[in-house]
């Protein structure tokens, strides 16, 4: 990470005696990109391969039927599913996750997760905050937007932030840092279409001849930054690397089948295409993927819905973890699965469960965390946290995995207020 030495904000990590402020805090102007690139080169830092797949289980998944089962609870609470043992002694998950149960040493379950709000939104999962927080300056940024903002200074070879779930808020970091959404226009920009490679080369050659304005007229070095991005854009388009990553036809059939199953993605397993695409995009250089999977707002037919969805999710997530393991990428790539809240302990008359923001659970894998454990705990009815883990701690852990120091990273919001990324900046200590 590149930093400007400053004095206003003291770090709390005890590692740095001086204070640091992130480059280019909004409205402050700062170091120019080429300076930063040179500085990074001088540091001997390579292109960062740390990445995140942030999976929003939209609607609020039933924590006590997936990751935090309560077989001893009364029948009106415990639900229809039984826990099964995993390859980590004492770590149990739902019986509908047989594939994941064989690789529990590669993930961690966070129980007793608190900090949720009763609001149907990806907001807490993507930003750590509710939609209305800081709304007067645009809201809090999603993790990917922060990565995008900071990766302006790095030698990234691809788009830093891609969303497979449509628009995700960039918050106060502004629209330039919203995710790239590879549908329609976004997708076609990545591939040579009407203009073939020869013609593109002809154009860029011509541009090089005609674009003669002296770059030193721009002391802010925006011109050089644009030159650098243009070069990358030519490389992305002519190599087809990003476009290919989005094309699952280019993937090995057997691998595709591990994600999609025998039905080839008919039904629930269709959502697993995005897991595979996420892996392919990260291989192409993307730093953060936002995606959602399934529908979890099970006020009715909770168990029927889960019986339908969990095996497909089991297949997709286990295939993703296996792929990343096989490629030696799991320590670099963090995966998190979570929803906006948990579900009520008491089963309703419609065999459903209602919203339950008091406690929920999350699933984490990769990124170098200490896997093979359960962290935090809820009470006997999965109604309240006994050993709470705040969702900001999970965000903090994810940022840490990405190499972003939440204790020192600050942005100046449009109202001039310095903002940390999170209020609770302690990572989940058991995981790091």
């Amino acid at each position, binding site marked *: 990470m590149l930093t400007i030495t400053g004095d206003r904000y*003291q770090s709390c990590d005890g590692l740095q005696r001086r204070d640091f402020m992130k480059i280019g805090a909004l409205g402050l102007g700062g170091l120019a990109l080429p300076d930063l690139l040179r500085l990074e080169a001088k540091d001997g830092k390579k292109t960062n391969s740390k990445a995140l797949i942030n999976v929003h289980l939209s609607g609020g998944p039933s924590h006590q039927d997936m990751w935090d089962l309560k077989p001893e609870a009364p029948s009106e609470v415990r639900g229809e599913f039984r826990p099964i043992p995993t390859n980590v002694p004492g770590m149990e998950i739902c019986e509908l996750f047989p594939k994941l149960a064989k690789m529990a040493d590669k993930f961690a379950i966070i129980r007793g997760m608190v900090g949720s709000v009763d609001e149907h939104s990806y907001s807490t999962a993507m930003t750590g905050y509710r939609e209305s927080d800081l709304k007067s300056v645009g809201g809090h940024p999603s993790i990917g937007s922060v990565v995008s903002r900071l990766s302006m200074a790095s030698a990234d070879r691809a788009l830093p932030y891609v969303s497979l779930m449509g628009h995700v808020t960039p918050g106060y970091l502004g629209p330039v840092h919203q995710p790239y959404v590879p549908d329609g226009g976004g997708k*076609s920009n990545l591939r040579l279409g009407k203009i073939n490679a020869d013609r593109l080369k002809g154009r860029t050659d011509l541009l090089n001849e005609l674009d003669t304005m002296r770059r030193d*007229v721009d002391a802010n070095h925006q011109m050089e930054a644009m030159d650098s991005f243009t070069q990358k*854009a030519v490389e992305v388009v002519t190599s087809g690397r990003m476009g290919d990553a989005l094309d699952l036809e280019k993937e090995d059939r057997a691998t595709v089948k591990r994600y999609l199953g025998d039905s080839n993605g008919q039904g629930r397993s269709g959502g697993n295409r995005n897991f595979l695409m996420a892996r392919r995009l990260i291989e192409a250089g993307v730093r953060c993927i936002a995606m959602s999977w399934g529908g979890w707002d099970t006020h009715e037919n909770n168990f029927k819905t889960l019986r339908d969805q969990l095996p497909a999710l089991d297949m997709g997530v286990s295939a993703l973890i296996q792929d990343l393991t096989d490629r030696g990428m799991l320590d670099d790539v963090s995966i998190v699965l979570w929803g906006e809240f948990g579900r009520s302990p008491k089963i309703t008359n419609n065999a459903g469960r209602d919203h339950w923001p008091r406690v929920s659970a999350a699933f984490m894998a990769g990124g170098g965390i200490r896997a093979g454990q359960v962290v935090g705990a809820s009470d006997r009815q999965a109604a309240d946290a006994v050993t709470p883990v705040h969702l900001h701690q999970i965000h903090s852990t994810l940022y840490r995995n990405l190499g972003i120091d939440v204790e020192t990273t600050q942005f100046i919001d449009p109202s001039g207020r310095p903002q940390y990324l999170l209020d609770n900046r302690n990572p989940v200590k058991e995981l790091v």
Partner: protein
Amino acid sequence: MKRLIAMALLLAAPAAAQEKPEAPAPASLSIQAAGTDDQDAGKAASLTGPESRLQVVVTATLPGGRLVDWTGAAKYTAAPEGIVTIDETGLVTPLKEGTATVTAAAGAATASVPVKVEHYVDPPLVNFPNQVTPIFTKLGCNSGGCHGKSGGQNGFRLSLLGFEPGDDYEYLVKESLGRRLFPAAPEHSLLLMKGIASVPHGGGDKLKKDSHEYRLLVRWITQGMPYGKDDAAMVTGISVFPRHRVMAPDGRQQLMVIAHYSDGSAENVTRTARYEPNDKLMASVNESGRVQMLGTPGEVAVMIRYQDRVAVAEATVPLGAEVANLPPVKSIVDDHVFAKLKKLGLPPSPVADDATFLRRVSLDITGRLPAAEVARKFLEDPDPAKREKAIERLLESEAYADFFANKWSAILRNRRDKDTYASGNFAFYQWIRAALDQNQPYDKFVREIVTASGEISDHPAVAWYRQVSKDFEQVEDVAQLFLGVRIQCARCHHHPFEKWSRKDYYGMAAFFSRVGRKEGLSPDEQRVFHQRGIAGSKDPKTGAALKPTGLGDQPLDIPAEEDPRLDLANWLTKPTNPFFARTLVNRYWKHFFGRGIVDPEDDMRDTNPASNKELLDGLAKKFVESGYDLKELIRTICRSSTYQLSSLPNAQNASDRQSFSRYYPRRLNAEVLLDSIDQMNGSATTFTGMPAGSRAVQIPDHGGVNSYFLTVFGKPGGASACECERSVDASLAQSLHLLNSPDIHGKMSSGVAKELSGDMKRTDTEKVQELYFRAFGRPASEHEMKYAIAHLTKFEAKDRPAAYEDIVWALINTKEFLFNH
């Protein structure tokens, strides 16, 4: 880059080792220890108790009269020996009671100051707010990143930056069953053991064992943790020496900070105060208050904070080059800018050529490129007043109102949160646009917004109250937009970089305390009215009742039947308001120069001073005298030689980013870029819900029209009152879009290329010339013509359209096109 390394080295190297001023031997010296006025040189200072200390500043007068800091270079002695000790950085600490004379020497020159040590053996009780809390601030314990954040850190909390010492005392002494402090064995107090990290501490060893701070804390705990009497003296202000200095680009300066107390006493708090330069590329300051210049000429300020007080030390760093052949003075802008450039010895670039001027001023006033024909005529026009005439023509055009309405619509937050907002937003936009088109005086414009009442359909400015709906948003937006004050911090605590406190904040909030709302005639269009009653507000922490009060002004008694917003508008727009006119002229200055005289443009405070105060004051005065005439302000700016300077740097001014010695290029904003591509190419973009032929700058509100191009190039969402929401950051997604999008390809194949390739009357040379005039308002150079023609000849006749498309594409991708320069 070199500068950065230099900065890193300076920060890493020991302070004293590098004090080698290369100036000639001083003609005389002066030394200050007790006061910050020039006549305080040699004034006796005192040290009270064994934990006291003070920083001296030694100033050398060189032959010729120049003043240079000699603090780190002087040789120090104290006589008689054994009473005080002084180190090579000028820090004096006591050894026993008595009075010593501290003498600084440099060659034959000397200067002395008496220092009296009192109460060395019977130290007075430590005062918690005045002595303990500042330690937490200095060491960063109570910063927003650590224990100062709301909720504290790992169970231990302090008030942010020590603004609430009473609370800090509670947290430390009474919370956690008193386990943090241990008077029986002070050094076993958790506070100290954590501070020096002898027990694990997330923040590390912020405190050094046996340091000044450590010893003072031990003393305080030993004394039984006194808080201090209720009537104890309080800090009423801080002052700094020197307040202003002319410095060499590699110069350094030790500062001295004196805290003034309510009982008339003073204390040298240099080593406890906090320092921050406003431009970190120009200066750095170490923990002891020593400023190091980093090689860039210009103006720089160092903000000094102690308790809830701020002060500022300013430095002018001249380059010292000869400034001859200045361009003609065309308006007061040039008087002030050229005076500054002469003072700095920073020669400006020459005035730009006609083509550059016309393109620049057209983009800045109207957001449009000059039409090719207009540009041709302008170049041929022999009239010496043609630039002034062009400015008039642009100011009278419809495009001027379009462009500036676009600017104001964003910061007035004309945002479509719901579909039902559309009609109200359109009305508000039309109202803004009409005000600009008719050149409504700015004070009237603001008054109508701030006092807006009734239905949006009758009084469109009421839409501002729909979007800016909470009283705190109204306070903060009015402060930021119209006063250039970012007051948000003072909502909860004293502003860290300003004089503003919660009292000031809620005094402003009281103006909005009588804003009533009821259901309007249309859905989501509330009616705003004055709710009869006495206006007032409460400080949420102390419960103190506050009357409506303009920032820095006296509280007002406003009768129940009067809308307090009228009083606010009166206060805002009175000619003596120190913020109102300055903020607007600075905002407009930034529009035309890419950098404010104060920058950011809405962060005007003593600790972030103007790079050219006379310029800011002069423009503001003229603006008030003109009756708040916005077009006249634009005229004043655009007619100046300063605005018309070339962006090409000369040998001296390439790194200038604040003195306006040349024009600073900047990327066209999202809407202007899209419109310019269409204009150059003869194409159009369709926006949902907008009539055909509409341009991007004419989109009336924010969030209602979806355009990938505009989003990716950083069109703001109208979410805040800050212009900084509009981003000109570069990104890969932008480059991909320009390079390879069906959007741009489609424009290329349906635009001017098609027309030119089908035109049999003109030669290729003439056609290329046409494209250059469209893009840049100038003819192609020989080199450019050669390459363009060479490109055309590579293609067969049937592929001529493609060849022209390539040229159009290349031209819109040049920096000369993408930037206003």
